[in-house]
């Protein structure tokens, strides 16, 4: 079945593949497609595009011809239909080798000469297995069916041609070419082209959480050039033809054009497409035309179903099954030869039947008979059992409370169902850094502008406080959040009140609806807008400078910034504010609405002029600036500002009056007030951080604080008044959000965004509308993003660029201007670089902000080419990239930022535990080397006395030499160490007393190291190192490294990551783990397991991995044991029945013995057994190593098990044999005690092997035993002539009424189990196993825990009483060392 799944998946990817070829890719994949999709042959022939016409438009004819071949919107994800279920299911099941084996046996039994049992009996195993799987499939399919039905019957409003109106229709009836009208919060039923939006600017917001889990809103744009903007759209007269690509699964790409009747073609791209299963947000009504429906939508094509991987253990298992086959053949051959010889020596016996067959032929027949008789030896049911066991294990992993994240309300997701035990064998762990080890919750930490560093001491302290607080105030944050969401919910319902009607049609329960909404908002607001990120304490120095022009009194004081610096600072913050794609929403407003773009006050004209003066368009003009010259102007400027603010607060009309006021006419009386406001508000925001424990209190405070400037705001910006602190920023990346919040702390607030403009508050200036010309979005190749705006003050076209330091530094070339300017620039650059380095050393993420002012002509020229690129259909991406790169040159470096990305909780502990467990942890990151090393220190991957080997080579040869050198060094180092830590390494290698090597390698060197010639050196070197850090590595490199280690060392690898850049690595590793964090769902989608925190890894691997592995390994061994043991009983009997293939048991009992009576205990064993308690496994990670090197399931264990089974079967057969030999015992009476004792032995053997026994075990064992005796007794009473030739009538009842039966069973059972019992006892006594240690450790552990809890309670109590103490990290509950 797996194979089939795989094939299906393959086909689908092939079908959807359509690599990067676009329209003109090689046509050789056409045949693939056509055979897979016969329906679509019509338009396949037409090429790789589809034409869409409006269904009720003027082109009815064309519509009919084209749309016939397009799929409808009904989806069917079920595999079977009701009528064809049985044949289809059987067909699928017989793809399994195991079932074929059963079938072969069943058929073999129909050959008269070979026949061993009644014909129907050999069918039973097959039928049972088929039935079990068929039931499972049917249930799954039924579930899918219900789901499909629910989805298909969702209602959408579709334009109906006859009534010329939008009518309610089920989703399944929607067809390509239909017009669908959707309201806010409705789900998009099919992939549609956006044709109309109630939004005047023709945008529409969608939430793609259903698709990729990203919770931020994406903006979609009405197809440009549509003539009918603004008014209600008339579908019946939609004349245009849409040409687009054939369906594919690329969510981020859509190409095509719309051809108007006039012949004008308008390019279509991804931002015009509304994807199925996304939700419309913040837009009242949209209308779209369906272009892909049903299974052809991108959402459905991306739906590849579960992943199938083959676990390591299963591969090993197969070799052992082969051994079983060998064993079976040997046994059958023995019987065949034995029978031949026996028959040869036999002359004319009375009991002979068919004595005329030659011994050789009879032997040949017996061979096949024996294959039927001994069929159980091949544990085919093992595969089914393993599957069931793994489902059980997954169930428990999924339900683990420790892997549940309270904040995100997310459990672990198990996407791969059949590699649970691989978790227990991980030897190498490859981890991404950002978002995996760290929170990926960026908090602005410090910045440097104009070459001057602002350390933000207060802010740093706040972060510390926050950290300390975080652990304690988990519940507080919850209340905070819920409070926030309650608010946002209310406003949401305000904004979308009209849509609530349609919501009711979707689901009857509007209560649920609300709750769901609030949940989503809650999730979203908590995603990037954590309290911590929002509340940045500004650096006082920077505040002073920024406010300098508004506070003339400080003019005289020292450190007066030059005007140039001021301009830098202003530009810097402006860039922070606008150079992003952040969507702003405030609870009281739908987020897309820009607060009514107030026309800039007339007084601003002057300000602009002034600003232009100390702006620096041509840098050659630098020399003309002199501080005294402009010193006056800021004062005037501020005064003017001030006047405006002041007068505004009294009467709006006074604004006009200030226009005429002279710069010199300051209103002295008002000056202090403004300063007061500024000063007050600045600490105010940071100040309440310490007291945010209580959101109500906080609100009160805020109200109190905002009241002084209330009047001003009321008049000037009516919507700001109480919204001020409630703007919600939804950013695509956490960095962006952090920067916007940081800017906001300096009162540079992004207030609103529309496609054409941004509304920005600047300190002392007020709201400004910044005309947005272009956004050149971030991409990982450019490593930067830019916005092109018209500067609000200077009116120039300005490009603001934000990006990785390496890139920006290269692009920030000194202009060809005057020498002085050049010198000045390089000075700034050097200073900034210095700061960047120091940031990186502190583990901060660095970004550079740069700007470039464009001449109008320059801009025009660029614009022309850019538009060309935008409208092109072919190579659009490349052209856009080109265009962006053309623009982003000769930048002027404004400054740099350092953003802290804090470690996730318990990361150091987790890493330490994993290392102690013998897992080598590699960190593969795209970050800078310094940052990576610092994070490595922070998370204790690196320890103070570790030796750092840094590999940064400039060339391949150097790299080769360097690797050799390092290898030598490591060798020397290790040789010196081996003697000393030989003993200590076992238990305390991780304690830090032994220094070990850490390799740090950068991307370029890694590239060389991964090449064929250097591979081996690199491998050897890295395998000797405790850890390896790869910095600046690309996604491809990450996967290359994983592949190298996995294939060359043949070890079990695990990759963990959270972003799209980790996908290849996750897919490459044996076990891929995705962290569902801040960066969307790509990693999760490609992973086998998805967790929400890095720390969950330790429980997942150390506990669940260990358990799953040991459970499964033990279960498999037990299965082999059970089969060998039971089958051998039959084999021994052949020695006394002339190798004729007789059995001494009723054939039903024989078949059901494995199938029913002893089948459940191993499953329970495989699901529930715990060889060690969870606390021990967590506390002593070294225990993990046993499984890692597959110590439990090794070849010799298999043979020991088989030998034990041989012994037990010998005992179990020959004790009854000797006890009954010579007596008048019948065949079935002879088998009865043998069978009963075999059952006892098999069940008790399991008890011996189990590490834990719960009531479930007890129950199952009892039921198993009970079912056997029940069945056998019932059978022997009721079965009069059935089951020839082994009619059981009266056998068991008679046997069990005789004491001899019990006497035999007792001695047999005990003797059979004696050696194993003895071995276990002696072994665990002599080798004091970890199992014993564990119970001891557990004691210590619980003691520790009790103490910790006491301490924690104490500190908690104190914190509650004295909030001041919260600052003191010393009171944080100390994590006591776990095991000595």
């Amino acid at each position: 079945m797996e194979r089939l799944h795989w094939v299906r998946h393959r086909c689908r990817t092939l079908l959807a593949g359509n690599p990067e070829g676009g329209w003109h890719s090689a046509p050789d994949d056409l045949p693939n497609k056509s055979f897979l999709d016969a329906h679509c042959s019509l338009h396949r022939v037409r090429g790789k595009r589809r034409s869409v016409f409006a269904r009720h438009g003027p082109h009815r004819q064309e519509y009919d011809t084209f749309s016939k071949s397009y799929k409808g919107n009904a989806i069917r994800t079920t595999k079977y239909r009701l009528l064809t279920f049985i044949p289809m299911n059987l067909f699928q099941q017989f793809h399994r080798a195991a079932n074929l084996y059963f079938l072969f046996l069943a058929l073999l039994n129909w050959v008269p000469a070979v026949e061993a049992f009644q014909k129907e009996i050999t069918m039973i195993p097959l039928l049972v297995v088929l039935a079990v799987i068929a039931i499972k499939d049917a249930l799954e399919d039924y579930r899918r069916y219900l789901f499909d039905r629910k989805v298909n019957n969702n209602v959408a409003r579709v334009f109906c041609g006859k009534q010329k109106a939008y009518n309610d229709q089920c989703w399944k009836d929607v067809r390509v070419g239909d017009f669908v009208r959707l309201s806010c919060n409705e789900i998009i039923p099919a992939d549609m082209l956006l044709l109309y939006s109630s939004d005047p600017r023709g945008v529409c917001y969608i939430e793609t959480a259903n698709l990729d889990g990203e919770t931020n809103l994406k903006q979609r744009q009405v197809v440009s050039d549509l003539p009918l903007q603004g008014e209600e759209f008339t579908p019946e007269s939609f004349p245009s033809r849409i040409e687009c690509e054939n369906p594919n699964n690329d969510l981020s790409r859509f190409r095509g054009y719309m051809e108007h009747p006039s012949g004008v073609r308008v390019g279509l791209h991804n931002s015009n497409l509304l994807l199925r299963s996304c939700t419309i947000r913040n837009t009242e009504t949209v209308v779209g035309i369906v272009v892909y429906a049903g299974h052809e939508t991108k959402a459905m094509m991306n739906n590849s179903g579960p992943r199938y991987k083959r676990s390591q253990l299963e591969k090993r298992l197969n070799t052992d099954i082969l051994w079983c086959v060998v064993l079976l053949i040997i046994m059958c051959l023995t019987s065949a030869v034995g029978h031949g010889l026996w028959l040869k020596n036999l002359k004319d016996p009375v009991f002979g039947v068919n004595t005329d067959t030659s011994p050789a032929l009879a032997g040949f027949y017996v061979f096949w008979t024996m294959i039927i008789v001994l069929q159980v030896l091949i544990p085919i049911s093992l595969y089914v059992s393993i599957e069931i066991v793994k489902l059980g294990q997954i169930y428990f992993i999924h339900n683990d409370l420790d892997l549940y994240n309270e904040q995100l309300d997310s459990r672990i997701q198990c996407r791969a169902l059949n590699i649970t035990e691989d978790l227990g064998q991980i030897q190498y762990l490859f981890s991404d850094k950002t978002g995996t080890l760290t929170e990926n919750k960026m908090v602005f930490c410090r910045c440097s502008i104009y070459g001057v560093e602002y350390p933000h001491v207060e802010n740093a302290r706040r972060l510390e406080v926050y950290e300390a607080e975080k652990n304690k105030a988990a519940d507080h944050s919850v209340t905070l959040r819920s409070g926030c969401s309650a608010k946002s919910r209310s406003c949401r319902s305000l904004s979308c009140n009209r849509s609530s009607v349609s919501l009711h049609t979707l689901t009857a329960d509007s209560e649920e609806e609300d709750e769901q909404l609030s949940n989503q908002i809650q999730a979203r607001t908590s995603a990037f807008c954590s309290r911590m990120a929002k509340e940045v304490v500004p650096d006082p120095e920077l505040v002073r400078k920024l406010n300098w022009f508004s506070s003339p009194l400080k003019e005289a004081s020292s450190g007066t910034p030059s005007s140039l610096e001021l301009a830098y600072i202003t530009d810097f913050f402006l860039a922070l504010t606008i150079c992003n794609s952040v969507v702003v929403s405030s609870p009281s407003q739908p987020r897309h609405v820009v607060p009514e773009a107030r026309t800039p006050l007339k007084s601003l004209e002057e300000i602009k002029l002034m600003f232009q003066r100390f702006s620096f368009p041509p840098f050659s003009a630098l020399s003309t600036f002199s501080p005294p010259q402009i010193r006056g102007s800021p004062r005037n400027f501020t005064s003017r500002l001030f006047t405006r603010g002041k007068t505004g607060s009294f009467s709006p009309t006074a604004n006009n009056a200030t226009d005429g006021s002279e710069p010199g006419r300051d209103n002295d009386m008002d000056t202090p007030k403004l300063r007061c406001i500024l000063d007050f508000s600045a600490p105010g925001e940071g100040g309440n951080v310490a007291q945010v424990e209580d959101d109500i209190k906080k609100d009160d405070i805020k109200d109190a604080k905002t009241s002084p400037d209330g009047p001003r705001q009321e008049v000037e910006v009516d919507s700001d008044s109480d919204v001020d602190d409630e703007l919600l920023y939804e950013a695509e990346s956490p960095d962006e959000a952090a920067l916007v919040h940081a800017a906001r702390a300096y009162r540079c607030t992004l207030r609103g965004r529309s496609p054409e403009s941004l509304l920005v508050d600047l300190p002392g200036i007020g709201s400004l509308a910044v005309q947005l010309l272009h956004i050149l979005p971030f991409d990982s190749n450019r490593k930067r993003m830019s916005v092109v705006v018209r500067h609000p003050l200077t009116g120039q076209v300005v490009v603001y660029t934000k990006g990785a330091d390496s890139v920006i530094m290269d692009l920030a070339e000194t202009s060809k201007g005057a020498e002085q300017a050049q010198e000045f620039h390089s000075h700034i650059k050097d200073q900034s670089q210095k700061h960047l380095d120091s940031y990186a050393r502190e583990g901060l993420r660095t970004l550079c902000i740069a700007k470039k002012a464009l001449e109008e002509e320059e801009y025009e020229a660029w614009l022309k080419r850019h538009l060309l690129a935008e409208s092109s259909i072919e190579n659009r991406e490349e052209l856009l990239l080109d265009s962006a790169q053309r623009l982003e040159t000769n930048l002027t470096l404004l400054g740099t930022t350092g953003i802290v990305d804090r470690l996730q909780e318990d990361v150091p502990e987790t890493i330490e535990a994993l290392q102690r467990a013998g897992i080598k942890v590699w960190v593969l990151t795209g970050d800078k080397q310094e940052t990576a090393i610092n994070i490595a220190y922070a998370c204790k991957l690196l320890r103070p006395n570790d030796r750092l080997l840094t590999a940064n080579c400039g060339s391949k040869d150097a790299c080769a030499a360097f690797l050799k050198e390092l290898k030598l060094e490591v060798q020397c180092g290790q040789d010196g160490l081996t003697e000393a830590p030989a003993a200590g390494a076992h238990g305390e290698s991780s304690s830090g007393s032994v220094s070990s090597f850490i390799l740090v390698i950068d991307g370029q060197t890694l590239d060389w190291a991964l090449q064929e010639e250097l591979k081996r050196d690199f491998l050897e070197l890295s395998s000797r190192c405790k850890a390896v850090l790869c910095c600046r590595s690309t996604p491809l490199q990450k996967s290359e490294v994983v592949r190298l280690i996995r294939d060359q060392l043949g070890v079990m690898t695990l990759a963990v990551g959270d972003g799209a850049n980790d996908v290849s690595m996750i897919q490459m590793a044996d076990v891929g783990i995705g962290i569902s964090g801040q960066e969307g769902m790509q990693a999760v989608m490609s992973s086998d397991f998805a967790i929400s925190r890095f720390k969950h890894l330790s429980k997942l691997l150390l506990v669940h991995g260990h358990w799953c592995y040991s459970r499964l390994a033990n279960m498999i061994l037990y299965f082999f044991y059970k089969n060998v043991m039971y089958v051998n009983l039959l084999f021994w009997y052949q020695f006394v029945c002339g190798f004729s293939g007789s059995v001494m048991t009723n054939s039903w009992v024989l078949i059901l013995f494995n199938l029913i009576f002893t089948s459940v205990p191993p499953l329970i064993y495989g699901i529930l057994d715990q060889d060690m308690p969870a606390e021990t496994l967590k506390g002593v990670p070294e225990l993990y190593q046993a499984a890692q090197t597959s110590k439990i399931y090794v070849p010799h264990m298999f043979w020991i098990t088989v030998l034990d089974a041989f012994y037990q079967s010998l005992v179990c057969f020959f004790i009854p044999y000797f006890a009954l030999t010579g007596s008048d015992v019948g065949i079935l009476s002879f088998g009865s005690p043998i069978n009963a004792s075999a059952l006892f032995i098999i069940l008790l053997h399991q008890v011996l092997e189990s590490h834990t026994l719960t009531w479930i075990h007890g129950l199952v064992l009892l039921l198993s035993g009970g079912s056997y005796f029940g069945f056998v007794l019932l059978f022997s009473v009721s079965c009069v002539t059935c089951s020839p030739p082994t009619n059981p009538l009266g056998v068991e009842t008679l046997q069990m009424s005789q004491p001899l039966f019990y006497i035999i069973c007792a001695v047999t059972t005990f003797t059979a189990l004696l050696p194993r019992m003895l071995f276990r006892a002696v072994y665990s006594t002599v080798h004091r196993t970890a199992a014993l240690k564990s119970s001891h450790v557990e004691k210590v552990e619980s003691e520790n825990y009790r103490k910790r809890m006491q301490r924690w309670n104490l500190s908690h109590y104190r914190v509650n009483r004295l909030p001041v103490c919260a600052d003191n990290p010393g009171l944080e509950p100390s994590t006591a060392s776990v095991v000595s």
Partner: protein
Amino acid sequence: MMASSYSAKDEDGHITVTGPGGAALRSKKPENTAFKQQRLPAWQPILTAGTVLPAFFIIGLIFIPIGIGLFVTSNNIREFEIDYTGVDESSPCFNCSQNFSWNSTQPCTCSIPFSLEQSYENNVFMYYGLSNFYQNHRRYVKSRDDSQLNGHLGSLKQPSKECEPYAKHENKPIAPCGAIANSMFNDTLELFYNDPNGTKVLIPLRATGIAWWTDKHVKFGNPGDGLNLTAEFQGTTKPVNWRKPVYELDSDPLNNGFINEDFIVWMRTAALPTFRKLYRIISRKDNMVPTLLRGNYTLEVVYNYPVRSFEGRKRMILSTISWMGGKNPFLGIAYITVGSVCFFLGVVLLIIHHKYGNRNNSADISN
């Protein structure tokens, strides 16, 4: 099943289109139950010398007395066995064994004298024993028709093809069909007590009560009402090797036809190639006199059954039985052996426990 239903949900791989209408409103927090968190109270059977040791001693203490009991019981059983195959020329049945034919009308008789050293109390069971006779051969075992033996009329006339090649003879269905019935043991054994005063006293042998109750009353049955067997078996023929048809096995109608106990006993195939089957019971007449006095006896055999061709042996066994069946010292010895081994191992474990267990304890304390 819980598990599989869970997986089904996870496996369907849908991109959830339910959106706000979805039902995923409950917190996804797993339930904190002992079962789901795998914290069920569990007994950890960690086997160590210390814990296993008492069990070994106890088992030793239980097994040895049982073994002695069994051994004594087995020894108290009187058993006498005599081989009358007639392999040796000196043997009285040598002649009979030499010229054999299934269809000889002239019965060959031989008498074997023997003497019992001890008198037999209680009921004495008389067995015939066969060696090297593979009644458990697969094809042999199969070769019967239970339905016919149960008295099913259809099967009587149309025997199952399992009986082949003994299903039909001369186009008449064989009753009872099959190889087992065909090869039924047909020697007649009679026992005479040679009274010291010279007279031969025929010892009365009881031919009923030797088959299982269920076999006689449930499993086997004559066709029809069983009153007129000759008529019921009309149209069938006797098995090839038989001398007389099945309805003439006994004069007693309750022991005739398919419910003839000798036949039933034969039809319960033996498990091992050397076996005995109950032939007759010598009931005890009164409590004062032993069932079989010690002294000389004569076994009179009507020698019909050929075993020489496959080197089989025929025996006559006289045995009393106890609660544990016939004489078999093996179980007693096995119990005694296992019990002693347990005891010995217990001592070994005690030593191990002293050597290692204490060290562990002290380590525990020091920690």
